[in-house]
């Protein structure tokens, strides 16, 4: 192993390290100051004190230690001590983590370790952009994912409010409970709506997958007239604001429902299900059309001609030749259609009646009228289900790309 280049292991100038660390911490204190300080002078004080303390800390570490490891241990112990002084195990753990990160950061900056792994010819601006870009990506990821992550621990709350209680923050087992999960699995209203969602979503999905696939195949034939207009019409449920579609559907399905009940004598509840399922199927069709159309682009038409040449009728050709090849697109469209129906609250509020109350509906009214953490428990369960579905989707996509001889990206 060759020794790293001198320029890399040599420390940067002390003022550079100190000012960089100071700036970073000032930025963090800026956030803290905005959220806690009562007036401007207090805010200024928070930022200055944060930066000053950080500079002093970094200076002490650099002058006392030669390498990162002992500095990290000492800093972790310091963090632990401060955490314990503040009086809880949770704070001590947090202190250790922050201590390690802080010491690591100081040495990382001071000994130019940020240059490691990067081409040596990069200018300092390029290095800055390299890390700046990563920070921006990280921030976007955090903003997308934190709202969901916040929900998870709250769903184990032992109290009936959306609150991080002091017990929870102390990691006291007393502060946590599974009672909201128990409530979900034993409460009739939640169970009924869960059952309704499980009835409505799959049937709506089957309908939208069948109709959407047929439409996509038809629209991919070059001899079909007004293809673009028809396509636009079929996609419109995705584009028209949902509340408008919902209002229209309310009146449309109300008269269909009245006819089914009045002339054909169907049961009211049954008709209610039909209405919601049809409405959801309409919402799901655009997703299926789009994904299937996309897969059909890669479908080789000469295969159908070859099948016809060998005596297969169009139906056999479809099921034996075309369907297996476009199946990944059909399935991902189906998953989107399923999630659309499973997550949908506006249309079902309009079209459905209380006996068709779906899970999102129950969550919506629960949030508005009750603010009970059972909603969070359900949300957690739904997030887990969605993650599973999306993982399946991604795996299928990779499989299809492998089958077509591409390297999955």
């Amino acid at each position, binding site marked *: 192993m060759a020794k790293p280049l001198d320029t890399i292991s040599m420390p940067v100038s002390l003022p550079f390290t100190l000012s960089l660390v100071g700036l970073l911490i000032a930025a963090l204190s800026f956030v803290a100051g905005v959220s806690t300080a009562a007036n401007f002078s207090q805010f200024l004080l928070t930022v200055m004190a944060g930066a000053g303390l950080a500079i002093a800390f970094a200076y002490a570490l650099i002058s006392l230690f030669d390498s990162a490891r002992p500095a990290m241990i000492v800093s972790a112990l310091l963090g632990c001590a401060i955490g314990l002084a503040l009086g809880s195990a949770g704070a001590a753990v947090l202190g250790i983590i922050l201590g390690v990160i802080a010491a690591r950061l100081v040495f990382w900056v001071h000994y130019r370790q940020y240059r490691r792994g990067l081409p040596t010819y990069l200018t300092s601006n390029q290095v800055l952009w390299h890390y700046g870009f990563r920070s921006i990506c990280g921030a976007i990821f955090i903003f997308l994912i934190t709202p969901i992550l916040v929900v998870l621990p709250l769903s184990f709350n032992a109290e009936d409010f959306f609150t991080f209680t002091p017990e929870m923050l102390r990691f006291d087992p007393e502060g946590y409970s599974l009672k909201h999960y128990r409530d979900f699995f034993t409460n009739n209203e939640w169970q009924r709506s869960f059952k309704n969602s499980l009835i409505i979503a799959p049937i709506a999905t089957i309908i939208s997958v069948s109709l959407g696939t047929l439409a996509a195949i038809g629209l991919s034939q070059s001899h079909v007239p007004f293809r673009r207009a028809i396509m636009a019409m079929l996609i419109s449920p995705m584009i028209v604001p949902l509340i408008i579609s919902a209002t229209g559907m309310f009146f449309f399905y109300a*008269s269909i429902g009245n006819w089914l009940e009045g002339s054909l004598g169907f049961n009211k509840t049954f008709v209610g299900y039909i209405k919601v399922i049809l409405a959801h199927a309409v919402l799901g069709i655009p997703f299926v059309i789009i994904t299937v159309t996309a897969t059909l682009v890669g479908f080789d038409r000469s295969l159908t001609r070859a099948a016809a040449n060998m005596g297969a009728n169009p139906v056999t050709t479809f099921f034996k030749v075309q369907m297996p090849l476009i199946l990944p697109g059909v399935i991902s469209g189906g998953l989107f259609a399923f999630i659309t129906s499973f997550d949908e609250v506006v249309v079902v509020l309009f079209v459905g009646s209380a*006996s068709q109350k779906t899970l999102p509906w129950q969550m919506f009214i629960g949030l508005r*009228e009750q603010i009970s953490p059972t909603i969070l428990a359900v949300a957690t369960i739904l997030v887990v289900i969605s993650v599973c579905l999306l993982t399946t989707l991604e795996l299928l996509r990779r499989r299809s790309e492998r089958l077509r001889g591409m390297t999955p990206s």
Partner: protein
Amino acid sequence: MKLTKTLLATTALTVFAGAVTAEEMTIVSWGGAYSASQLKAYHEPYSEKTGVTILNDTSSAEAVAKLRAMSEADNVTWDVVDVVAADAMRLCDEGLALEIDPDKDLAAAPDGTPASEDFGELLVSPCFIPQIVYSTAFGYRTDLVGDTPPSKICDVFDLEAYPGKRSLEKRPINNMEWALLCDGVAKEDVYDVLATEEGQDQALAKLDTIKDSVVWWSAGADTPQLLADGEVVMGSTYNGRLFSVIEEQKQPVAMLWDAQVFDLDGWIIPAGLSEERKARALDYIMFATDTQRLADQAKYISYGPARLSSAPLVGKHAELGIDMAPHMPTDPENAKNTFLYNYEFWADYRDDIDAKFQAWLAK
């Protein structure tokens, strides 16, 4: 393909099986602790007695709009709806609610007093069957108000003695009255003053003094959540919600009953039901508003029963075993200084004052 077929068949069967079982009726209410009390006091005994399955919808907040749409589409899916008296009056005026005859359609008191006398002046509309008297009052965090807890409504407007946020309902009703009361207007003059432009400006000017410290709520569950979080030091909401926070959730919260505003809540039956559904709805109403049932509801939530004959039957909380009387808004200790929601005034002025209030909020 086979799997799909089997799935289809089974789900279709489940739907059918679910559909052909017992009779169903949809009852619309407000959700939360309130619906839970109705479930225990009315729905469960009624289902047990008649075998009717009761579906709970919690759309009372938008009952007027939804009933209008349903009646336009000729597709009324609700059988009995719980609304506040003001909404009942509107629905009745628009012909969306069924008019009832109290003495024929409602049970008489156990001693034979006819329903019209037992409910008395609470029968504010021919379509409205009163159920409870509730009040909008304040709750405050006992640990955040210092040594002298608030005792007067004007403490809400006193930012020096009680710094911190307070939550108020996002509508002029109640807030305007309280503001005038604390701006030196005598209680009996409040509505005379509020009827004038200057009076409305005066009330808004008073509200302006605390505007920066107000969190506005629109659902009854908001204030309990805010109080539990310590986000506000005091806030108005329905007294039953506060009871639940204080006694059931054991939060450090106490009541400020001063200048509480009484209002009525009750049932209406939508107009245009089929004869069969109408008969069932009337049967339910007859059952659910008799003397014992109304008293039973007070075992679960601290709202006063609307019948005179129910009052003596109010006892202890069904689960906590505490006396319910001191938690009732109508208890003499709590009802020293009260308002009654002024239906006539707000029917006349609501649109104007609402517009003004919303404009003021947006400023």
